[in-house]
């Protein structure tokens, strides 16, 4: 199980990496592994306002469907269109090319309530 050191994690297996005022959001390597071959990433509307815990999108693999929740509050400012066309990027590079959305953080302090990489590694220890 890969862990991204500079990201924070939600219990529902999403990660966020803060870049200035923006949080880059994706699902963890653990989550992609559990889902298996991902075949579909649902649409995310640019400009939508989300609260932490709101539904961001849904992801489908061959044998499962999973709702993905935003780990932070804010406005969606960019969506990874490449991952919509090639959902397998989530499998191959969950913390890199497989990111899902960039969210302009309305409450940057919020990320502190998420798990650190070490805490998440402990949380998802097999």
């Amino acid at each position, binding site marked *: 199980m890969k862990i991204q050191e500079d990201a924070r994690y939600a219990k529902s297996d999403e990660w966020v990496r803060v870049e200035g005022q923006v949080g880059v959001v994706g699902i963890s390597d653990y989550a992609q592994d559990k889902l298996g*071959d991902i*075949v*579909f990433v649902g649409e995310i509307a640019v400009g939508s306002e989300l609260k932490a815990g709101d539904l961001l999108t849904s992801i*489908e693999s*061959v*044998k*499962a469907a999973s709702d993905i929740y935003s780990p932070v509050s804010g406005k969606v400012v960019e969506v990874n269109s490449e991952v919509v066309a090639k*959902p*397998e990027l989530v499998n191959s590079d969950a913390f890199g090319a497989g990111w899902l959305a960039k969210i302009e953080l309305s409450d940057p302090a919020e990320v502190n309530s998420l798990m650190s990489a070490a805490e998440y590694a402990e949380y998802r220890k097999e």
Partner: protein
Amino acid sequence: MTLYDKSVAARCAFSFSFEEDEARGESCVPEYARASVKALPEVSELDLVRHFTNLARVNYGVDTGFYPLGSCTMKYNPKINERLAADPRLTMRHPLDDESDNQGVLQMEYELKESLKEITGMDDFTLQPACGAHGELTGMLIIHAYMRDHDPRRTRVLIPDSAHGTNPASASMAGFQVVTVPSDGRGGVDMEALDRLMDDTVAAIMLTNPNTVGLFEENITRIAELVHARGGLLYYDGANLNALMGLIRPGDLGFDVVHLNLHKTFSTPHGGGGPGAAPVGVKQFLAEYLPVPIVVSRDGRYTLDSDRPRSIGRMSAFYGNTSVLARAFVYIRMMGRDGLVAASRAAVINANYVKSLLSPYYPPAYDRPVMHETVLSAKGYDKYGVSLLDIAKRLMDYGYHPPTIYFPHFPPHAEEVMMIEPTESESKETLDAFCDALIKISKEAQEQPDLLLSAPHNTVVTRVNETYAARHLVTSQRDKKENG
């Protein structure tokens, strides 16, 4: 190759004495409504026959071999059922023709309904639902309508975590919110959780009994009392009735609504995915909500009653899958009182026999005697790098259809389990040979795991890439053409 690939312009598999010319027909409809000629294949009759005969040959069915698919009750489909259901005096009936012309078919449906009432202990039945999920929706709509009239606060439905996915989908489609009830350590409903969840917002609990792990719900009477005492209703998913005929009746246990999959317990063939039929039975206080029309007997005549103001309405255009109902009618009539009991007895003995032969190699999920099916674990083989899927695929090489192996959302203590339902149709020799195959496979898993990982080898195609299909969606010949 599809039929399109075999098409040659001007070939024809059809002869008919047309009396008009096409131009006359086209002139009958206005320009704005007219379509161009549709792209259908053109093949000779023998091309067509070979195409579909060869397709049927590469399909595995009960008539080909043992099909122990748990929860699906793949019992033998007697051929007399097929012959009688194909009687033109039945198949040529127009559903809207005068009742006086349809007395035979209406009587058949009426007598089937009476038999089902007796087998289940319910007071009335509709024969309209087309298959299990349609039956569930019908039953849950009946409960929805009843609660609307009597206690509209009740908008939630309790469903055990072991339930088939159709149950929550049906409850949700009928307008309810679904609440999951956990299982206890013995595979039954967790009574403490039920006690906590069963409040005055709950309309009903949906139960499968024996449940999807083949276990009889030991607390069923207590569950019924608890749910009824707090104003809820009990829904019985009769997909797994095959163990209980003549032994116990859902109506006597306190269930208010029940659906039966005729394509399971009552031997109508499954057709590779339907058509089935799923009559829904109710207690008297719910009878007024059944969908219309209902076949009734009045003064020695059979008639379709549509004058039921509280009915939920219609579930389909007509009265149900009549020729499927006919097969079940014939099955019940031929088996009779003793035959149904004998079928359940044989099904239960077969399941326990398979469980005892295989337990040393594939430990049971719960160590209790089972009813009509058994759930066994292949978790121990992961240390050889072999999954249950690999074992299932290897079974194909031995000439068997694998048991049920997919359990999305199943309780975690039951991961990597297979559900085997032998049914009463199989002989001891068949069961012995099948168990031998699974035992051999358990040795292969340890000694030659590659044999399993690359299985099946003897089928018309090897493992099919589901991921590729989902990522490169081609669902018609038109898609194929567009993709070049």
